[in-house]
C-alpha cells in the first residue's frame, strides 16, 4: 500500500505566503455578491491542457473562478455537440484546449480537432453566436502561465458581452 504521508505533508508545508499574489481575484458566479458572473466551461485534454492547468495550480497562479474544466483524454474526444450542450445549459463562454499540433499524446488527435473546429467555429459564428463566446487554444503541460492568461482574457471578454442568450435552455 503506498504511503503518501510524506508527499501530503510536503504539500501542506507550502504556506499561503508562498502563493503568488498576482492575478485577478477569482470572483465566482453569484458568490453572494448578487452581481452577474459569467459561467465558462473549458474542455481540456488530459495530457497537455489539463496538465497546464495543474501547473498553474502548483505555481499558485491566480485566475478567475468562472472557468470550470471538463477533462477529456484528448482534444480529439471533444464532440462539437458538447459545446452546444454547454451553451444550452447556461454557459456564457466555452473554451476548447488541447496539445499543440504535433505534440498530441495520441499523435494525431488534435489534428482532427483542428480541422473539426476550424469548421465548427466558423459555423457557430455564422448561426449568430458571438465570436468571443467560443475559443480554442493549444496549451501544453508546461504552459501554466498561458493557461492562466487565456483564462483571464477569455473570462474578461465574455464578461464584457454579458449573459449569453443564444441557445440557452434553462428553467
Amino acid at each position, binding site marked *: 500500500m503506498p504511503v503518501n504521508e510524506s508527499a501530503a505533508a510536503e504539500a501542506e508545508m507550502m504556506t*499561503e505566503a508562498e502563493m503568488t499574489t498576482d492575478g485577478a481575484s477569482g470572483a465566482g458566479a453569484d*458568490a*453572494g455578491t448578487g452581481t452577474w458572473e459569467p459561467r465558462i466551461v473549458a474542455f481540456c485534454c488530459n495530457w497537455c491542457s489539463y496538465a497546464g492547468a495543474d501547473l498553474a495550480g502548483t505555481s499558485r497562479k491566480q485566475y478567475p473562478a468562472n472557468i470550470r474544466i471538463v477533462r477529456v483524454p484528448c482534444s480529439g474526444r471533444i464532440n462539437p455537440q458538447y459545446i452546444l450542450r454547454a451553451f444550452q445549459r447556461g454557459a456564457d463562454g466555452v473554451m476548447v484546449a488541447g496539445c499543440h499540433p504535433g505534440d498530441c499524446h495520441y499523435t*494525431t488527435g488534435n489534428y482532427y480537432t483542428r480541422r473539426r473546429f476550424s469548421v465548427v467555429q466558423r459555423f457557430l459564428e455564422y448561426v449568430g453566436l458571438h465570436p468571443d463566446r467560443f475559443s480554442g487554444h493549444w496549451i501544453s503541460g508546461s504552459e501554466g502561465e498561458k493557461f492562466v492568461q487565456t483564462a483571464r482574457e477569455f473570462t474578461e471578454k465574455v464578461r464584457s458581452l454579458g449573459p449569453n442568450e443564444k441557445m440557452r435552455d434553462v428553467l
Partner: protein
Amino acid sequence: MKRIGVFVCHCGTNIAATVDVEKVAESARHLPHVVFATTYKFMCADPGQKLIADAIREHALNRVVVAACSPHMHERTFRKAVERAGVNPYLMEVANVREQCSWVHRDKPVGTEKAAALVAAAVAKVARNVPLESGKLPVERRALVVGGGIAGIQAALDIAESGYHVTIVEREQSVGGRMAQLDKTFPTLDCSSCILTPKMVDVGHHPMIEICSYSEIESVEGYVGNFEVTIRRKATSVDPDVCTGCGECWNRCPVKKLPSSFNMDLGHRPAIYVDFPQAIPNVPVIDRANCTYYLRDGKCRVCEKVCPTKAIDFTLEDRLVKERFGAIVMATGFQTASLQQYPEWGLGTYPDVVTGLHFERLVSSTGPTEGKIKRPSDGKEPKSVVFVLCAGSRDEARGRSYCSKACCMYSAKQAILLREKIPQAQAHVFYMDIRTAGKDYEEFYMRAKEEYGVNYIRGRVAKVYPEKDHLVVRGEDTLLGRPVAVEADMVVLAAAIEPRADAAALAQKVGISYNRDHFFSEAHPKLRPVESNTGGVFLAGCCQGPKDIPETVAQASAAAAKVVQMFSKDALVSEAQLASVNEAWCIGCFLCQPVCPYKAIQPKEIEERRGRDKIKRTVSSVNTGLCQGCGACAVACPSGAMRLNGFTDEQILAEVDAVCL
C-alpha cells in the same frame, strides 16, 4: 441503487485554507445518489484510504468521489483504494479541488462554491460510470527483428541475452547491413568490420537467435503480444543444412561479372554468391535472374557438380512461413538518396561523381580496389577530391527538409582517410553548416581541418561538369561572398539518408505510421522515442530517422529493453478505458477507421435478427490490444455507436450539465 460516497480532502491546509471543506461536503450530501460525505486531512495517506474503505463497507457505497488534488497525482491511488474495498476502480472519480480551485482562487467563498460545483460534476459523472475491467492479453515471448544491420543485430543480441527467442529477418544474403560496408568509423577511426564482425558471429551462433536471411515480411496480423507474421523465405537454391560454406561454388561459377550491390556496384560477384567473405550465414544464394541454369533451361550446373556436400538444389521454391511473435523491432535501416532531382551534380552521369557509401567501398580494404582509392572512370589515384555536404538534405524546395545528421562527420572522416592514404591529395568540403553534436565530434572535425588540412568551403555547389580529364565543381563561397571553382578528380556527395524505398509499404503491412519522408513515426517524440504507435512494435536505427552508429546502437538496446520489459510480464494488461462499439447502432460507415492512430478498428461481420430473418452485416470492431483510448473514433462516429468507456457521451454531458448549473 447507486450509493455514492464523497470524500473531501483538506490536503493539510492546501485545500482547507481557501475552500470550506465542510461546506463542500455538506452541499454534496444534497446531490442525487450521495448517501455519505465527509472530510479528512489527508485522503491519500493510509488513514485516509482506510477511511474510504471503511465508509464503503459501512454505508454500502458502490461509487466514490474523492475531492482532492489533480487526478494526475492520485487517481491511481484512490482507484486502488476503492478496489481493495471491493468497488470497481473505475467507479471512482476525482474532483480536482486543489490545482483547479484552492491553489488558484484565494477568495474562500468563491473557491468553496467552485469546489462544490466540481464535486457535483464528479458526482454526476460517477453516477453514470460503469465497472470496467482491464483486459489481460497473453504474450508470445518471441521477438521478431526486421533488418539485420547493426540496429537489428544489437536489438537481437540484447533480447536473446535476456533469455527470449529472436528471429531476425534480413532481406540480403547476409546480416551486417550498412555498417558492414563502411571502412572506418568516426570519431575513433575504428575499423567498422572489426567491431561489427564479432557481433555478427554472436548472432550467428546464439542459440536463441534464428536468422532468416534472404527473406522478407509478407504480412503481419494480430496485435501486441500476439502477432502472426508471414515471412517469405526466398528460394536460395542452396540447402543450408548441408552447405558448409566452403566456397567451391562461388569460386567456380562461370558467371562472374555481376554487379555487387554490397560494393555499391563498383565490384563484381558471381551468380552464386555470399555478400562478402565474413557473411553470416555463410551459405550462398543463387541469383536466379542471372544464373545460366535458370536462364538456359537447366544448362551449366557447375556449382552442383563442384559442391562437395550436394547442397545445391535448383528446385527449391519460395516458402511462406507463418510464425507467432509477441513483439516486433523494426530496424530496416536506410538507403542514400538517388539525387535524381539534382542533375547539376552529375551523379550517374559522370562516373567520378559518387556518394559517400561508394567512397566507403573504395577506401575499404575489403572493397573492389582493396583499399586503394582509385577513381571509377579510369582507376587513377585522385589528387583532388571534393566532398559535398547536404546533398539532397535540408532542401525543402526539392522535397527533403531534414538534416541527415551523420554526413558532416562521415565526410570529415572520409577526408581524413583520403589524406592518410594519399597524403598529397587535396580534400575540399562544401558545406552549409557543420554539425558536430556528439562526444568528441567537434574535436574530430577540428583535427580534419587543422591536422589534416581539409579545406572547408561554406557554400552550395551549383554545378559539377567535366573538363579535360577532371571535373570542375562550381559553387559559391558564402563566407567570402564570391563564386568558387574547384578542380577535382572525384566528387563525393554526402547523399541524404532516406528510408528504404519500400518503407511505407512495409509500415502499412506492419500497421505503424510514418512521416511524410516515410521514416517510421515514434509514439512520442520525446517520451516514447523507440515505441511506434502500435503496441508491441518498436523502432531502432535509421528507419526512424537519420542517426549515426552509437545512436543506433543505443536505440536498438532501448528497443530491446522495451521488448524484454513486455516479455517479463505474465500477461499484458490493457487499458480499461477503451473504445467499444454498440453494434446495433453501428452502420459500418467506417468514418472511425481513418482517425484511429493505432489501426485498432477493423471490420467485423455480425449476424442480426431483422423481424423473422437473420441478416449479416459489417460493423466496426475495436481491437483492445491496439486501442489506447484517445476517443477520436467516438467523435468521428456520427451516430455515437462508437463509445469511449470512461469518457462516454453520457458521462461528459452529465459533467457539462453539472458545471453549468
